[in-house]
């Protein structure tokens, strides 16, 4: 950390007077020059106000939707995995599609909190808290599918290297086991990172609480944080380290998820392009979901001064960039298949675009490659309704991407006699729909009880937080 007081006393380099550089205005992170107190009141006000009616309405709807997953899983456990539409040759149906979809959603949260922190992108401060919450809840939803896909869910602990009655250990050559470690590490580190970020804000709420119960609860979780600079010193270092650790983590998690496919021998899966292509797709879908969640919140809670047009611009541009990368990967897969001159590989890709699942392929292409291209235009980036609609397309498209990858390759594998057409059952559909309910329940609880934005971090990026501001 450069010593700020010494830099102010040093004379400016003489060259600056000669070339007289143009002062490039930086976009403000908080519009209308709001004070520290305004930020505290705004964010804490959301938690302290009376629970709004819309919150209860949404919460009840979300609970009802979440019950679909509950019933679906109870039925699955009591009957068997056959209630999902899995049948030879497609034994990885919606379960793995939904798993990859939800894990991918989570990645934007970590990207915003970790990678943008390392890159000193100050605009992350007003969206990182909610995006990290989204990450954690998305990992919860994702984790359900593989855990229940194992069939005898009460034996799912066999996945971990724990001594069991068979005296046999898991096979560490399997990418599926790598996934267990990657996803559980990801979930754990995301929670830790989120909690460390919450500490100062929990202390703020604790100090403002009027009710004893809240004081004790928020106080307990705030761990006695008091904003001491001797603490901030270690805290900031710890936060930076966690950002530095989460960055390779987030890249590795989706890489390992892609290994589930890439280290198999199935045509269409066995490609080296998968890791970067999956990571780009994950960030793309995650930012789609961040926009889907944040734009309504911004409108409901009048947060326009904190999530400014500049923030939306930044997010849409990332969606545009990663969407274009994903489009490039779709094209490159065809090139690799053609150039590799492997009949099975070529067939797999022609079948994707023109075979029995062509409808899914073209939904994927139009949502993922075409829809983000609208973000080239400033007028569209400034129209929040359109941005929100496009973000929905991104979410839909990325679900279809995982569907296309999983199902087209499996349903048309090496031996034509085993070919089949996979369709989900009603249990599949409702279990999946229910996870949106589960996600919403968790997210609604989050916005009701925890500070939606990182107050301390937002205050620190305002101009008046700079000790040299006049």
């Amino acid at each position: 950390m450069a010593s700020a007081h010494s830099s102010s006393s040093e004379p400016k380099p003489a060259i600056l007077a000669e070339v007289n550089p143009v002062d490039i205005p930086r976009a403000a992170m908080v519009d209308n020059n709001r004070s520290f107190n305004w930020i505290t009141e705004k964010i804490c006000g959301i938690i302290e106000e009376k629970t709004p009616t819309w919150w209860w309405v949404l919460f009840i709807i979300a609970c009802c939707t979440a019950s679909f997953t509950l019933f679906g899983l109870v039925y699955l456990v009591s009957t068997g995995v056959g209630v999902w539409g899995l049948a030879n040759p497609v034994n990885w149906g919606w379960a793995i599609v939904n798993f990859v979809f939800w894990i991918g959603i989570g990645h934007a949260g970590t990207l915003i909190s970790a990678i943008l922190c390392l890159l000193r992108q100050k605009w992350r401060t007003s969206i990182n808290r909610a995006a990290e919450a989204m990450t954690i809840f998305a990992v919860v939803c994702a984790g359900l599918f593989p855990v229940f896909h194992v069939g005898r869910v009460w034996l799912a602990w066999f996945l971990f290297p724990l001594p069991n009655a068979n005296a046999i250990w898991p096979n560490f050559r399997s990418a599926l086991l790598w996934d267990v470690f990657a996803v559980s590490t990801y979930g754990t580190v995301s929670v830790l990172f989120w909690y460390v970020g919450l500490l100062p804000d929990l202390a703020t709420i604790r100090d403002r609480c009027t009710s004893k119960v809240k004081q004790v609860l928020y106080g307990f979780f705030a761990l006695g944080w008091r904003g001491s600079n001797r603490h901030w010193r270690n805290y900031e270092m710890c936060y930076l380290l966690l950002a530095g650790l989460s960055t390779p983590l987030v890249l590795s998690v989706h890489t390992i998820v892609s290994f589930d496919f890439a280290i198999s021998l199935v045509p269409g899966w066995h490609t080296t392009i998968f890791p970067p292509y999956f990571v780009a797709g994950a960030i793309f879908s995650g930012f789609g979901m961040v926009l889907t969640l944040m734009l309504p919140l911004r409108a409901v809670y009048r947060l326009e001064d904190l999530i400014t047009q500049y923030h939306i611009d930044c997010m849409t541009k990332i969606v545009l960039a990663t969407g274009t990368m994903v489009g490039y990967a779709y094209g490159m897969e065809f090139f690799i298949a053609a150039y590799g001159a492997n009949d099975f590989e070529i067939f797999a890709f022609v079948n994707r675009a023109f075979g029995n699942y062509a409808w899914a392929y073209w939904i994927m292409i139009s949502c993922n490659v075409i829809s983000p291209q609208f973000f080239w235009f400033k007028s569209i980036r400034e129209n929040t309704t359109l941005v929100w609609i496009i973000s929905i397309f991104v979410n839909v498209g990325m679900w279809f991407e995982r569907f296309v990858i999983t199902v087209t390759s499996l349903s048309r594998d090496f031996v034509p006699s085993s070919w089949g057409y996979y369709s989900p059952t009603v249990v599949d559909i409702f279990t999946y729909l229910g996870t949106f309910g589960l996600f919403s329940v968790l997210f609604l609880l989050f916005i009701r009880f925890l500070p939606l934005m990182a107050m301390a971090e937002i205050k620190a990026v305002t101009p008046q937080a700079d000790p040299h501001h006049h």
Partner: protein
Amino acid sequence: MAKKYGLIAKFDTPADIMHAAEKVRDAGYKQWDVITPFPIHGMDPAMGLKRSIVPRFTIVGGTLGFTTGMSMIWFTNAYDYKILIGGKPLFSPMFAFPVSYELTILFSAFASIAGMFIMNKLPMHYHPMLKHKEVAASSDDKFFLYIETADPQYSEESTRSLLESLNPVEIDELDD
């Protein structure tokens, strides 16, 4: 009558608190602290604090995580119950790498947070600052500096006059 913990001064802006901290540092005090609602850039040198040693915990955690991963995989798959699959070697750092990599990160993250908690002596649910009447302002938009009575240089008159010379908004006593 509550025991006195120290003298506390209140400031309105980050610039004021930083200049105040520089002067208290130069006066040679050791047992004092600055309370701010957010980390102020440049406050560490202004207080004369050195770089945090949390990274040392991280490197220990990371090394431990990586060796745990590698040795666990060797022990489980190549030693305790040999699993021979497709004639592949019983152990290779290649297939053991992804899991060891994840454990490196997991252990490092735990170690960093543990390091931060240990260095900060958290959780600490009791501290005189938390009882101060303006604690809500200290985590909102005001900046405080206190000097403890436990400081060897502390004396009622000289410390108070030092704090007064810093142009604070207000000086108050901090009860233990």
